[in-house]
């Protein structure tokens, strides 16, 4: 994005707030504070990209992903890298899938309803106005009528359906499952984005995960960040935070970061930590801050994201078009569930290297079976789940003994699916297989995977059991706030980015009101 001509601040100036991270959490915070006239600086570990330089080539497109090594542990080790973390001005919204269902009210009351997991300390009704503001500002496309929430309205018509979409609609109809066009954070008509310029209608290129070259997809560098810069925020790319300094009162007084190998110290009156579910707890553990609860790094969650692929007699070539244009929420609380919570389903298009990786890791393929499966690539279409994940004491992020290039210990993340996740996975596989078969698949293949990095700095009502309060403010360090997916106390079935943006707005406004 254009950063020339933006207002800048010196390291010695005590700015009103530093925001670490420019993704779905940090960008709305930065824009909200800047709009109110605060002097704010965002520190982004990755570079500032020109979207026209993005490439659909999967091997090289990882430029926009967080590829610094993380260590994984547990029975279901998370595949980081291209799957779930971004790096660069815009954060993970550079590579996200733009699939934007809203959190369901039942998901925020999971413990009250099921006795499992935890409740959110925020009422759904309080979150929704923030979500609506986000949807309105960034522009979300969706169906005219949303079967699971008839009151909902989307700004733009839904993205074009591809062969996978038609397949999933056909299968769901045959089974009596309601399905419709998915809410998607992209333009389906030309849109003038305030301070960012024209975002042309999506061309169905299919490369959302490799970075949107046209600006059709919502990413922070085409929405909230230009707004922030227009109101006087500074964004410093290539700035990796390595430390946080406190004053005598235990308040953050400066943020230490490396830029071009040189250590800097930005003085500030407040700090928003928005580095995501891995980097936020890593920095807190590294600095030893905000952890009197012992909860930093705990309750790491990953959505169940198992896929079922069908081989069809027709050429599907599902790399064409928006990859996940159909949704069903009928599975949010299945009648025959033997688990707490639920899942949603989406149609799937995929690009070949990503598919092959999942076939190896999630399907165990190699040799002629793998080559044969890829030779059948153009006949494949799939359905994928996004399933609730319960917080667990066993799933924890800690610091490893190994250090990264900046001298910070690498994150070590243990994750194992629990009984609830496994029961849900079995249910989802049955449903997805039925859909794909009802749509005419001649054979099916199940590929296990997880998605999103959630939890690790949970919000709650008590300083004993949570890192931040319901507003996102640290119980221990009064001018430290966290706004990203690390504060989620439970995973929530919906994909996280929309809720992260909403929480960003909300925390920023709570900060302003404090």
């Amino acid at each position: 994005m254009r950063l020339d001509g933006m207002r800048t601040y010196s390291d010695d100036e005590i700015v009103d707030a530093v925001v670490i991270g420019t993704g779905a959490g940090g960008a709305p915070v930065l824009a909200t504070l800047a709009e109110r006239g605060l002097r704010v600086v965002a520190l982004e570990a990755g570079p500032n990209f020109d979207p026209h330089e993005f490439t659909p080539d999967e091997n090289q497109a990882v430029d926009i992903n967080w590829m610094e090594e993380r260590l994984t542990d547990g029975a279901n080790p998370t595949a980081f890298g291209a799957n779930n973390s971004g790096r660069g001005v815009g954060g993970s919204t550079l590579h996200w899938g733009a699939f934007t269902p809203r959190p369901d009210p039942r998901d925020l009351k999971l413990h009250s309803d099921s006795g499992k997991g935890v409740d959110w300390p925020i009422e759904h009704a309080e979150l929704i106005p923030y979500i609506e503001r986000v949807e309105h500002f960034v522009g979300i496309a969706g169906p005219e009528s949303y079967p699971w929430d008839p009151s909902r309205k989307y700004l733009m018509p839904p993205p074009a359906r591809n062969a996978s979409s038609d397949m999933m609609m056909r299968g769901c109809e045959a089974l009596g499952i309601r399905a419709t066009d998915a809410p998607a954070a992209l333009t389906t008509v030309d849109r003038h984005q305030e301070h960012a310029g024209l975002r042309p209608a999506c061309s169905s290129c299919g490369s959302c995960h490799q970075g949107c070259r046209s600006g059709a997809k919502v990413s922070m560098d085409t929405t909230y960040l230009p707004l922030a810069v227009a109101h006087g925020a500074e964004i410093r790319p290539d700035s990796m935070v390595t430390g946080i300094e406190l004053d005598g009162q235990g308040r953050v007084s400066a943020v230490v970061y490396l830029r071009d190998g040189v250590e800097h110290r930005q003085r500030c009156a407040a700090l928003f930590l928005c580095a995501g579910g891995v980097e936020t707890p890593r920095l807190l553990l590294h600095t030893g801050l905000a952890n009197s609860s012992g909860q930093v790094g705990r309750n790491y969650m990953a959505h169940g994201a198992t896929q079922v692929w069908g081989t069809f007699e027709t050429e599907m070539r599902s790399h064409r078009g928006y990859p996940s244009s159909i949704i069903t929420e009928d599975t949010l609380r299945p009648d025959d569930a033997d688990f707490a919570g639920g899942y949603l389903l989406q149609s799937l298009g995929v690009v070949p290297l990503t598919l092959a990786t999942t076939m190896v890791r999630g399907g165990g393929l190699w040799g002629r079976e793998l080559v044969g499966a890829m030779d059948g690539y153009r006949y494949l279409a799939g359905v994928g789940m996004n399933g609730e994940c319960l917080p667990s004491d066993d799933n924890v992020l800690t610091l490893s003994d190994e250090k990264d290039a900046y001298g910070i210990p690498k994150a070590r993340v243990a994750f194992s699916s629990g009984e609830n996740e496994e029961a849900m996975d079995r249910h989802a596989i049955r449903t997805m297989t039925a859909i794909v078969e009802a749509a005419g698949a001649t054979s099916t293949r199940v590929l296990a995977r997880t998605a999103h990095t959630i939890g690790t700095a949970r919000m709650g009502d008590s300083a004993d059991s949570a890192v931040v309060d319901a507003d996102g403010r640290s119980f221990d360090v009064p001018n430290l706030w966290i706004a990203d997916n690390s504060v989620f106390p439970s995973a929530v079935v919906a994909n996280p980015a929309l809720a992260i943006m909403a929480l960003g707005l909300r925390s920023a406004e709570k900060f302003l009101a404090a």
Partner: protein
Amino acid sequence: MSTPTIFCLHALGSSRLEFEPLAERLGDDFEVVAFDLPGFGEANRAEGLSVDEMVDGVIRKIRRHGSTRFLLAGHSMGGKVATLVAARILDGSAGLFGLTGVVLLAASPPSPEPMSDESRAQMLGWAATGRIDHDAARTFVDDNVGAPLGAAADERALADVQRSRAEAWTAWFERGSREDRSDEVGTLDVPAVILAGGADGPLGEDGQRRLNLPVYGRADVVVLEGAGHLLPLERPDEVAAAVRTLWREHAGRGPEVPVDVGRVIASGRTNTRTRRILARRALADRPSYEPRALTPAQLETLRAVAARVVPQTGEPIDLAARVDSQLHRGHSDGWRNVALPPDPEAYRLALTALAGFGDLSEHARDETLTAIVDGSWTPPAGTLTADQMTLWFEDCRVDLSRTWLAHPATMARVGFDGFANGGDVQRIQGFHLLAADTREGWEPLPHPTHDHDTQEAAR
């Protein structure tokens, strides 16, 4: 396999006719296409004489020709043009795809051509009257051969010098030969052969080794003893043999990218960066690749593993060498299982454990890999544990299969054309036909493999 094309760019004072002897010798296996550069041969023009204009003109002609599998040959002045064209193909900006190798014949380098002030002045003097006469041509040819040419070749050489436009002649000596284009060229990792005349002057062997060899990271230098500067006329047999060797041992190796796929990569539907990536990735592997992260023995073992993990038919991609190169560059996929040592170390230990794998029968190899997958294979002490082997092999399969699929020939094979979903414009073209069994007019047709086993597995 399609017939490869060799595009030939002549020397100063010459014309496309100088490549006729070469065409006679290569015509059965190559399509030899030679162009007259502006101001020479039948291109009797006094415009387009700058190096940049020559480069643009050659790019346009190759595009019009349409080949997607070609060598580029350049003689003397044409060598500088060839190097600049090659650089622009490999950086994606030429809008071309399919360069497989470069043949340099006593070539002028991308840096200023070594030339004494005296000979520059002498040759500029010949064109001062606006026309190069017979005596000057005679001197020029005599000064540039190691031994007298045959009568027909000599006559051709003399005639070409005399029909050169004086403006073109002057432009090269005053400007083109002096331009320093080495920064924009950098180094080109394309298969190449550099031919030098043993009796040539400043562009002889020393000049080639000093000025062109550093540009071409993987070139062989061939010195033609006794030859002067006019190699295509003096030594067409040896030049033809060098071209065939380059093709057989280097440039022509590896899987072929189908013509329609190559044209889509070349087209405005593919953005420049993606074209650059694919152009470089499609280059043939080095047959004598020296591993940089692994030992030669470990690399051989990895090749044997790769042959089972991703069985390739026809001309294979050297997946093991490409993975070694990634390991050497510190390529990371963003994570590693805590039970494994860092990637290069895990590879070294696992491949040491698998020493001798390549000597096993095909059946025994697959049994070994199956046992590794289920954790029942016992590695030798001092390498990895059985569980670590399982984890490593999962990573290894991902690395090998991604490397295989990233090659444009594999993309063609599996029917993926999403690399061409938009060019260097904000309103990228994308896809308009999205339904099953639909295909837009620009899209390549399927290029399925004829390997029956994998076709069975696909079904």
